[in-house]
């Protein structure tokens, strides 16, 4: 019998082994599969390789990437945010309601949406940091509370332009900035892609280039040791969940801009997608922990696959299987063919 204990973290963390190919596959497994996918699809379908389609793929991954980056931040401090989907829904309803029901302007709606996201993040943070409830359990409760608040606030109804408000109809409309977020372009690049790109750059810089990123990872690695070297652990964990809430809010704003209406549980589906992107990202470049670049690739990976499969008219019921299969292969390449932690 040989067990995992034989892999000391040291060995795992130093993939500087002799076998260059194995090492390459380990670091680049997911990227290689992604590249192969792109090549194959491009050869097989003339439209796939076009700039327009590339934009569609990025557009399809933009929202997932933004929420996923939020999840990534909470994961770096060793947490887990189950409330991101509920937060997105809340922000969607707040922003849509602000404009449609209360007739606020676009910027105000955006600010209110971001504030709602931060509040949800704060709720998480309070439950975890001050009430000392374990992350998963706390964010689960927060998920119910945030969802519940959303549902209560609008009596479970959807918000759309001209909706009925008892005796009258709503007169507000979606502001121009939301129209732009929903369908604007800059140099042929969709606005949501630009927003997601900026968010990615910011999170990447934060996690990889700043001392705060170091601190996040340190807290995730060993909170006791982090406190012992004088890191205000609580404050940073609060910040991490606030950022997660903020990014969920950004994603919610992109979502409401694209759908031009507010449905009470529209964000829920994004929880699993965002977590998937972040988890798939673990394997990218051999990081083996939550990281910004990996999450981006995770989001793009799934979007590319679905785009390609749709183009080839794969029935929807076959897409899930292919998704699982490719994901499995990529993970096998990254984890299993990676540096042997056994003899």
């Amino acid at each position: 019998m040989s067990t995992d204990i034989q892999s000391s973290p040291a060995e795992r963390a130093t993939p500087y082994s002799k076998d260059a190919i194995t090492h390459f596959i380990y670091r680049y497994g997911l990227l290689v599969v992604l590249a192969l996918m792109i090549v194959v699809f491009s050869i097989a379908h003339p439209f796939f390789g076009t700039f327009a389609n590339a934009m569609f793929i990025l557009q399809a991954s933009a929202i997932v990437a933004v929420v996923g980056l939020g999840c990534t931040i909470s994961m770096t401090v060793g947490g887990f945010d189950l409330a991101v989907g509920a937060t997105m829904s809340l922000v969607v309803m707040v922003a849509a309601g602000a404009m449609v029901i209360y007739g606020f302007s676009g910027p105000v709606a955006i600010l209110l949406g971001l504030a709602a996201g931060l509040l949800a993040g704060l709720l998480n943070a309070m439950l975890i940091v001050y009430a000392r409830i374990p992350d998963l359990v706390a964010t689960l409760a927060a998920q119910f509370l945030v969802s519940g608040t959303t549902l209560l606030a609008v009596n479970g109804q959807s918000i759309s332009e001209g909706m009925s408000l008892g005796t009258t109809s709503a007169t507000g409309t979606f502001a121009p900035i939301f129209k732009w977020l929903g369908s604007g372009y800059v140099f042929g690049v969709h606005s949501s892609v630009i927003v997601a790109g900026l968010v990615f750059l910011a999170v990447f810089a934060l996690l990889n280039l700043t001392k705060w990123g170091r601190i996040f990872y340190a807290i995730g690695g060993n909170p006791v040791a982090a406190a012992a070297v004088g890191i205000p652990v609580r404050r940073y964990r609060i910040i991490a969940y606030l950022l997660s809430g903020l990014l969920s809010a950004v994603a919610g704003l992109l979502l409401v801009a694209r759908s031009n209406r507010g449905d009470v549980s529209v964000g829920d589906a994004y929880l699993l997608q965002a977590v998937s992107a972040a988890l798939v990202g673990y394997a990218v470049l051999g990081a083996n922990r939550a990281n910004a670049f990996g999450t981006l690739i995770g989001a793009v990976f799934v979007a590319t696959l679905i785009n390609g499969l749709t183009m080839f008219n794969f029935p929807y019921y076959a897409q899930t299987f292919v998704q699982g299969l490719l994901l499995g292969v990529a993970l096998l390449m990254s984890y299993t063919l990676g540096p042997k932690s056994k003899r």
Partner: protein
Amino acid sequence: QEGVPATISASATDEVPAKFAEKNVRIAVVRQLNTGDVYQNWIAGIESEADRLGIKLDVYNADGENAKQALFLQQAVATKPDAIIVGWGFVDSLAPGLEAAKAANIPVITFDVGAQPSDDFVTIDQGDKPMMAGILEKLKEDLGGGDIKGDVIYVYVPGYQALDRRDTVWREFIAENPGLNLVAQIGVVNSNTAAQTADQARAAMTANPDVVAIVAPYDEFAKGASLAVGELGRQSKTKVYGMDISTADIAVMVGENSPWVVTATTDMVNVGAVILRTTAAKIAGQLEGNTLSITPAVITQAELRDAKVQNVEELRKAFSALTTPEVSRAPWMDAVE
């Protein structure tokens, strides 16, 4: 703007349009909902008719997400098909794509999108209001007509277009019949709607032992309600007024001692075929008008039992009203091979 009922302007002598003869037609289908029998039947109807007419389909499945559907619609426009069929969804979300389609001169046929009739696209729906009216009529009849009285439970979740349209009819109905006492409104929609509706219905019925009717205008609701009535052994007292039909629903309705007494429905396979034909006619430039409502059938438990049907195929044969092969049919469509 008033809708103009859609009609076919082709005559019996018209040739098969060149594009169709060359089998050079491509239609994109962008649907919001895809998982479940209803949606499976709908696409099957479209596919079989497309097969027959030699049309190539690109199907985009949005998994119930409006934003995804909106994006898919734009993506479909970018691939420049001959026409686009939009299944379910909201005009709010779809507007940019619809505009892009208009700009690109691609005809759009929408199904159950709840759009106002317009010149920009053809709207088709499955007659939710007549369906609701149909089952409520049966309810009134069962309660003896006239000034009906009794405790009722209503199952509803807002935010789903078809349910919302059915709800407007319900609200009128309950207002017109003050003797009806709405003791509980329940509802849940998720991937296990039936079982969770059953849990709720049971709690509501336990609290209100005199319920005579559960109005459940969606088959998952109706199944859940029937389950709950059965589990409480209240079949003799409480009846379920449901909607839609599938093979499984048939089994529930004709089952021994079933409380589900009536349903109103269209046949989704037929609906799909009608949509496809309408689209083909539009591509051929032979469609006048811009709106089409597919007439539903109201089917009672007794009728089902008499016809001894077991599944949707047999139902289709037994209830010819469900199949409308002449709707939106141009004569040349039979000549394509």
